[in-house]
């Protein structure tokens, strides 16, 4: 593989693979929870149907994240984008969760 020709490329590819696999999974999960909350309107009356919506969309989100991670300029920016999106969605979810209590 041309991409694996030297160590730097190898490491950056490895980072991309890890970010896509795990970062993508975490973001897909968070996105599913967010969609569930948004489609229910709040976190109190979450209906089963909202969860099904979230779950069904999560796979498309996962695929999109993976494609994004491999198409951005550098592995570093891919990592930063995915991590920050995860943090933001996590913050929003915790905010909605806290609003109930």
């Amino acid at each position: 593989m041309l991409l694996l020709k030297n160590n730097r490329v190898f490491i950056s590819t490895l980072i991309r693979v890890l970010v896509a696999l795990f970062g993508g999974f975490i973001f897909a999960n968070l996105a599913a929870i967010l969609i569930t909350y948004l489609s229910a309107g709040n976190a109190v009356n979450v209906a089963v149907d909202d969860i099904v919506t979230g779950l069904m969309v999560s796979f498309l989100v996962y695929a999109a994240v993976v494609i994004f991670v491999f198409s951005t300029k550098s592995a570093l920016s891919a990592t930063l984008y995915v991590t920050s999106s995860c943090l933001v969605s996590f913050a929003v979810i915790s905010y909605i969760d806290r609003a109930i209590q």
Partner: protein
Amino acid sequence: MKGRFRQSMNWLHTWTGFIFGWLLYFIFVTGSTGYFENEIDRWMKPEMTIVNQHIDEYKVLASAEKYLNTLAYNSPEWYISFPAAREPFIGISWLQLADKETNTPREWRAKNLDPINGSSTDVRETGGGRTLYRMHYNLHYVPQVVGYILVSLATMLMLIGLITGVIIHKKIFTEFFTFRSKKGLRAWLDIHNIFSVLPLPFHLMITYSGLLLLMGISMSTVIDTTYGEGKSNHKRFYKEAHSDIKEKKFINLSPENLSLKTVLEDAHNRYKDQRVSYVGLKDRGTKNEHYDIWFDAFEGIESASAVEYRIKDKKVEIEISLGKSGNAASVYDFFEHLHEGLFANTYLRWLYFISGLLGAGMIATGMILWTLKRKKNAEKQQKAKFIALIERVNIGIIIGVPIAIAAYFWSNRLIPVSMATRSDWEVHSLFITLIACVCFCLTRPIKEVWTNMLWLAASVYILLPVLNVFTTEHNIISSVKNSDWLMLGFDLSMLFFGACFAIAAMIIKRKKANAIPIIQSTSLAESCELPPSSLIKEKVV
């Protein structure tokens, strides 16, 4: 920028496809067999008595009830099945409760009834079509959750492979009509394109819906966070997610008269043009005792509704299901039905099956392309050795999986009927054969591997109907006489598959014969433009 994007997508396409390629191929082939579950079942249970004449359903019900009363008097659940289009049998089944004194485990038991004299027949223990198609998502030997997660991951990569595959094709439509048969590597790429583009909607649908079917496991953290952790909460989630809208009404039947017979009568009167496929009696002997009726037909993509009868307030109440209650659940339901294809008639079923095989072909040609492209540039000997190994395992899997499935059918006839663990050994023989096929490919000279394997596949499939003649009383002529269309269809299909393998073997042999003079006079790079089997004497091996 655009070129770079396409390049990175090309890389992603190559590797997402490669990593789980063999597993995905196995999933596609075994999954495709699922569309003929009942037909495979019929062949693997040759003792079943088929119903090919008109029967009196009430008479059948009476004799079934008599059997259940003696065999399953303390069982909480009874089912009586009537002949349906793809299951022309009469059967009874019940839930056997665990009994420590007689050492009986809690299990489902079933018996087949003769339509003429009402006697019961013992049917050999077999995994049948169900065990075979279930392998495509539970992988059989691994714990269920591990199997589901592995399959989900492979499916996710498949989805990414499909999306990136569409992206990297600049002229997807023109390329679809391009086939350069004499151009080696290009020929394989063209076949790969045809296998991918023609059934692309099917591939996308089957991959995405496959992900949805396992989403409760693969994305279980979502349910944990929004619905609550633990098994009981998950169970509650599934129950509510799959809940139907139900219409309830009281009917004009006195509660004392409520019995299997009156329930069947009422169902026949209520739905005059529907055939009843199952009658069930659930929660027997409890306050919640109720009767269920299922119909054979599908209305469009939805299965025709089931009716439930129970006693409430000293009156008989019926419950008719009218589809899923939630909107998202209805979408899920739509995808589930599309994936399973239970609504399909014979023609559509074949189309499903062929599309599934085209998917398997797409994966197989993708794997072949992977080796061919690398073989060209493999300068180091070590790398070349590794690629040659992958090439051999490729052949072992691509032709080995069909051979292994044939071995599953062979073992059904060859393992003694009295053997206690015979259904386990059917599955063992499938996987032992698969491993043996891969080992065979590793040891044979590379120029003979393709043709050897194809001839082997051709012979095991063509001999299956012959085996059927010698081990049972069924054969092609008797199947026609008894109008046993499922048995006949299976035997003929096996002959057809065997013929396909034989033709493929002959084509490859002819190509190779034509190719040999060229190979001696051309360089390594050009020799790649021959079928993979002919990449022989080069230093790669």
